[in-house]
């Protein structure tokens, strides 16, 4: 081994030291840069002819625990989901008001019923009547406001989905650019660590929006797919586009069928050119996009349904009068006559009978439906679990319903049209297989007076009575946003007391106020399971008052659950972030120590060169 080889050895050492210094400088400089992972560089001995001939600087590597990274991405996606859901659940909860405050929904409802109680005690007072109306209006407008807010929250989530599509497309484009670079530089001596850092930043961004699974191939390229199986990136990115619809209203809902869909969705043209609806169930499970979708199409729709049910229950409780059948007999057959002249679309009448063979009592509920495309009806529409529901096709008027009732009831019964909208149902008389127990209707009142004690206090837009019509778009859908106090009542508040005009009900008659008060606080109704309170087989039953409490409790519990989930998910992510940081973090102490080491090595290598020079000088001076 000669001096020249010593010199070149020292030179390669100096080179390696310089690169080490550069790496340390980069590490220190980027210690606090988000997305930067600490880098290390391996050194190897350069061997020639079986002898060490120098030093090679190896590939720059990232210090990174890939298992933790992939787990962190999954959990961060879940956290993004639960954070978003929780923040909206809390907002819904806040919409219902602060406990005990003047504007909370239950306080407003209680104020309204208290005003009715006051009216029952002092029906003659103009001021008491005015107070009932003003409390009713405040309650209605609060429901309108909450309903509008719920819909604007849905709109926010729709906007978020649209915004997310752009972000994701940008991220995917960036991933492609960096990924291409990595592939082309895969054989470079220093490696592609910095590029990988960059690609991870974009993938992290993606994992915030959706749950992604990243697999790396041998060349260093990545393949990205959602856990649901939609491939987002495989050398080339999929293209996402937002299929927008109009403004969000309570009537607009998601459907996998593009023609029925009232809200926007995300269409993905996959790597292979296939087009899929990314928001269809199953493809996105976690991440902010899935949260926005679930909020828009599920959580907030449910909230709206609860509010609608409440609004509908209030209008129905105050504005429905019972129409009781009159018992009749014809020979041995007994039954009832029922006057159906006031029946509105959506109103129902029901027949209760006992099968004498087994002693069981059954109920058949008939509902007026003017839109025959909605038939047949499901049993769940009545909020009763013990009845069979039959939709009556009124599209051709009331005349053909006799036949429909007959065919629904079967041969044990005889159904007759008595004229004047009176229907007669008789049992089978002497054969005595069945006995009719009752035949009653619930009719929505449309007039302020001379239509029973009930009162169309709350009405739909355009002065229309709320009859829970199922035609076209069900009337209950979005009713919370439209409910208002009957204008005619505001013009003449004496109608809160006067229910008959010939002769006029006296000012001191508390019959109607008492009915109104009892309808909200004492009369027990049952509610359909549409709002997620109760189930079809065991519907929630209770007073309107208890339904209000139920809604607030359910919303409060949902908000608290979401909050808890979000909190616990956040701490999971924190733990992982800490662990991940341990593996990726630049340790300043280590870098300093390495600097000292490099400095010493550099001085030593320089000394070697100096010594070689001196020795060469010595040789030359001979």
């Amino acid at each position, binding site marked *: 081994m000669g001096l020249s080889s010593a010199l070149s050895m020292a030179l390669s050492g100096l080179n390696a030291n310089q690169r080490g210094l550069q790496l340390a400088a980069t590490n220190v400089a980027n210690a606090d840069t988000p997305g930067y992972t600490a880098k290390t560089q391996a050194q190897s001995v350069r061997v020639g002819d079986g002898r060490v001939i120098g030093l090679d600087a190896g590939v720059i590597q990232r210090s990174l625990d890939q298992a933790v990274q992939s787990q962190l991405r999954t959990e961060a996606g879940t956290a993004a989901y639960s954070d978003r859901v929780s923040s909206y659940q809390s907002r819904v909860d806040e919409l219902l008001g602060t406990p005990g405050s003047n504007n909370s929904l239950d306080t407003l409802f209680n*104020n309204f019923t208290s005003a009715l109680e006051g009216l029952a*005690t002092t029906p003659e007072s103009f001021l008491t009547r005015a107070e009932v109306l003003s409390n009713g209006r405040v309650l209605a407008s609060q429901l309108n406001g909450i309903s509008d807010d719920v819909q604007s929250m849905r709109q926010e989530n729709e906007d978020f989905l649209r915004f997310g599509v752009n972000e994701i497309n940008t991220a995917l484009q960036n991933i492609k650019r960096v990924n291409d670079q990595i592939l082309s530089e895969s054989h470079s001596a220093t490696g592609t660590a910095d590029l990988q850092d960059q690609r991870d930043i974009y993938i992290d961004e993606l994992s915030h929006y959706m749950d992604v699974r990243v697999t790396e191939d041998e060349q260093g390229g990545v393949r990205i797919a959602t856990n649901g199986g939609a491939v987002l990136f495989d050398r080339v990115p999929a293209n996402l586009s937002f299929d927008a619809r109009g403004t969000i209203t309570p009537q607009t809902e998601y459907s996998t069928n593009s023609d029925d869909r009232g809200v926007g969705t995300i269409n993905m043209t996959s790597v292979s050119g296939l087009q899929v609806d990314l928001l269809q169930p199953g493809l996105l499970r976690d991440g902010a996009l899935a949260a926005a979708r679930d909020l828009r199409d599920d959580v907030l729709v449910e909230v709206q349904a609860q509010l609608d049910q409440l609004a509908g229950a209030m209008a129905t409780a105050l504005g429905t009068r019972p129409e009781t059948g009159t018992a009749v007999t014809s020979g041995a057959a007994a039954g009832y006559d029922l006057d159906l002249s006031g029946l509105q679309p959506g109103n129902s009448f029901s027949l209760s009978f006992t099968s004498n063979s087994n002693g069981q009592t059954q109920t058949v509920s008939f509902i007026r439906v003017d839109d025959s495309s909605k038939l047949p009806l499901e049993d769940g529409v009545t909020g009763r679990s013990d009845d069979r529901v039959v939709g009556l096709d009124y599209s051709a008027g009331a005349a053909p319903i006799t036949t429909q009732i007959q065919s629904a009831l079967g041969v044990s019964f005889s159904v007759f049209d008595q004229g004047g909208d009176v229907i007669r149902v008789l049992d089978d008389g002497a054969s005595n297989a069945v006995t009719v127990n009752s035949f009653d209707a619930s009719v929505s009142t449309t007039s302020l007076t001379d239509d029973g004690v009930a009162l169309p206090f709350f009405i739909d837009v355009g002065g229309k009575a709320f009859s829970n019509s199922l035609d076209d778009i069900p009337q209950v859908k979005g009713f919370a946003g439209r409910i208002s106090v009957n204008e005619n009542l505001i013009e003449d508040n004496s109608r809160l007391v006067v229910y008959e005009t010939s002769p006029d009900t006296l000012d001191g008659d508390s019959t109607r106020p008492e009915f109104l008060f009892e309808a909200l606080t004492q009369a027990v109704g049952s509610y359909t399971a549409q709002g997620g309170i109760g189930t079809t087989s065991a519907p929630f039953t209770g007073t309107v008052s208890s339904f209000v409490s139920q809604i607030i409790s359910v919303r409060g519990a949902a908000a608290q659950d979401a909050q808890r989930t979000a909190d616990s998910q956040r701490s999971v992510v924190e733990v992982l972030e800490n662990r991940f940081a341990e593996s990726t973090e630049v340790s300043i102490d280590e870098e300093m120590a390495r600097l000292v080491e490099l400095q010493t090595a550099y001085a030593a290598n320089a000394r070697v060169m100096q010594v070689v020079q001196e020795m060469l000088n010595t040789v030359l001076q001979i």
Partner: protein
Amino acid sequence: MVDPLVGSRSSLLVRDLGQMRDSLSDLQRQLSTGKTADTYAGLGPERSLSIAFRSDVSRLDSYQSSITMVELRLSISDQVMTRMNDVATEARGAMDPNIYDLLSDGRTQGQATARNLLGETLSLLNSEAGGRHLFAGEDVLNKPVESLNAIMEGEGARVGFTQHKAERFLADSGSSGTGRLDVTQPLTNQVQMSEDGSHPFGMKISALNNGLSNTTSTGPTGDPATIGIDFAGQPTAGETIKLSFDLPDGSVTDIVLTAAVAGQGGDGLFEIGATPDDTAANLSTALTSALQYVTDVELQAASAISAGEDFFNTANGAVPQRVDGPPFESAIALRDGTPEDTVFWYKGDNAANSARKTATARIDDGLSISYGARANEEAFQVLVQNLAVFSSDTFVDGNENDEARYGELASKTVQNISYPSGVQKLEQIAGELGAARSAAGNADARHTVKGGTLQTMIDGIETADLNEVSVNILTLQTQMEASYRATSILFDMSLVNYI
């Protein structure tokens, strides 16, 4: 731009500190508002209790405000009833049959007092509480009774009580002033007396008690009833004949005539003439004059009482009754008065249901009290009617018949407003209203206790325990200080500082 997942340790530390700060501000909020949470979510699982309790408290509050309202009304009713009782007592004092001291207007001092008491009674019945008339049934916005003058004297085309009373007396006395009875002699030895028709007016013959010898008598038979006396021979002096009559107000009166020897006749006697025919003629004359006296005294008093009954008894949807005439003297029926021709003294709600039911208040779940009243309820009507009857008559000083009539009238009215059994008493109404009031009072006390308990429970759920919060703040403060210190040491401990 979303943060990449690779963060630096320092940013994580700072975030931890931020979370502690958030907890501190939440504790501060609890300290300043006194509430554990400002959302239903924050209340935890007990939120449904809190909501249910709040709804209960609100309901109790509304019951209590109803009770306060009802209390006010019932306390006014109570004062009215108390005064009304005093009025009845004073009226009984004024209606003394034995004090007949006429004033210049032909009325006694007692009658003048009665008229004043009547005025007061009517004004008591028009009592209101906050615009609500308490004795009007459900027609609470209008005064239930007319003014004293209108009731007594009438108003425009509408006839008042005085006029009706006069018409009624015409109908009761008949054109001959014999109480609608005709005394005739179909044969010279016969005396016959018959009612002039089937109608509610005048006197009705109820019995004949003939103690005259040598006579035969028939009746009373038929409707209209008739009696007859045939003189086959002469009666003996001192023998009597007694006739009993029913008066329109339900009281009875008798006429007793005693046979007297010729030349010794007088009131209550008839002379035995020379022949049975003469005696019969004498009896007929004596009978007629006795009937005229009874008509003038007892019947007129009874007629006034009946007129009062016709005019004032309107409970349960009835209307004032008028004599169907003119001519009134020969009237055979009463007719319904109309609002156009008769003063309806009671103008309020007059349905057939119980007066109490005309005002109800819900004072507890499933508990209502009924506290309505109508001015034409029997107890009130009896007082008003008898005061009106008593005070309306006028008398002529020195007329003995008038003095006797006054005595009759006073004793009849005083008896009526002593509320004989079977007549609703003022105390009954007062008692029923009092029962409602005490039920309301009990409910109020119950609600106060229950409301307090519920409020305590709500506070237990919603109110932050200030001691706990303070301790938490102190703990948190210590933790934060320690963390700040630790963080600062951690950042200081770097090799950079030592080379």
